[in-house]
């Protein structure tokens, strides 16, 4: 009878079962999110453009100057917002998807030992945030990384773990 742990999601899961950082379903979810976000950004851009064209058709000699400034101001503000959303929503998701696919497709190295997740959040330029994970086994210490969003889950799983590492990142783990 395997040990079980009550999970927040409301289902029971054997504690010594291998837990992937990103499941195949997670990859599909990220792909769908990218499509949704990209569509939303394109639709928003089209809506702003349509609104500006509508303002153009509402222009007469008396309000022409004001309308032109309004159209420019709306375009600039909307463009800034969309650039911001593209950077902080679309690109972040795209980087996360790339990371998830890399973890899934790469060959894994297995490390067993006492795991410590650092408190410091790190970020490489144009990439997702991560944390360092130190694995101590038989007097040797190895340092790998885990994506920030999954660090808490790894910490919760205990100290003695078996890690499946791909390109220096934790791809899956199992309680020993």
């Amino acid at each position, binding site marked *: 009878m395997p040990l079980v742990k009550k999970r927040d999601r409301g289902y029971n899961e054997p504690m010594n079962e291998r837990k992937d950082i990103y499941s195949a379903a997670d990859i599909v979810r990220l792909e769908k999110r990218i499509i949704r976000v990209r569509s939303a950004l394109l639709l928003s851009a089209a809506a702003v453009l349509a609104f500006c064209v509508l303002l153009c*058709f509402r222009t007469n000699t008396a309000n022409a100057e004001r309308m032109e400034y309004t159209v420019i101001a709306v*375009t600039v503000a909307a463009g800034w917002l969309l650039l911001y959303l593209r950077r902080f929503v679309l690109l972040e998701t795209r980087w996360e998807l790339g990371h998830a696919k890399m973890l899934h497709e790469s060959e894994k190295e297995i490390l067993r030992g006492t795991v410590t997740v650092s408190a410091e959040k790190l970020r490489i330029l144009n990439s997702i945030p991560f944390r360092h994970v130190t694995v101590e086994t038989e007097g040797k210490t190895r340092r790998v990384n885990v994506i920030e969003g999954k660090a808490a889950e790894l910490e919760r799983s205990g100290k003695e773990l078996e890690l499946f590492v791909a390109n220096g990142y934790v791809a899956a783990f199992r309680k020993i």
Partner: protein
Amino acid sequence: MRILKNIVSRLHTYVLWALIAAVFWGFIFGIITDAPAEKKIVIFADALRCEEKDLDIELEKTKPDSIRLIRAHTFDYTMFDEAGLLNADIYLVPGSRAADYIESYSPLNPSRLPWKDAELWSWEGTAYGLKLQGALPYFDFGAEESDVYLFFGVNSVHTASLNGSADDAALQVAYDLSHLK
């Protein structure tokens, strides 16, 4: 904090977007809000200054129904848009420079004009323009220019009485213009 730092680090992108938007709408706004020649009267004034917007608004109050826009331009404007000079419907030019645009004027038939007893401006025996009486509001032709002449464009499509084009809107607008207070 990270978001603010990122925005500052990409400030050039945001500034570049603002410039692109301003230049883009600078062109596109003019194209969309413009009217075709059949629905527009263009006035070229060889004046030092012209309160173009106020003049356009004033003339549009009494414009013919077939006309959507009235646009007045000075010489400065036509340096960037030659069509404003070559395809104007109405020309307002001081007497000292009237001959400079002779190729743009349409010959006049004085008997078919609404101005009576107007002093004509002629070139090689053909009447092209007529002298406007009194000071023209909205224009500054310079202190030394006392005589201002009115001409009609040879390419105008709004001078039916002169060249058999679609309508006489240019004559009507010019008449209103000459009677502005």
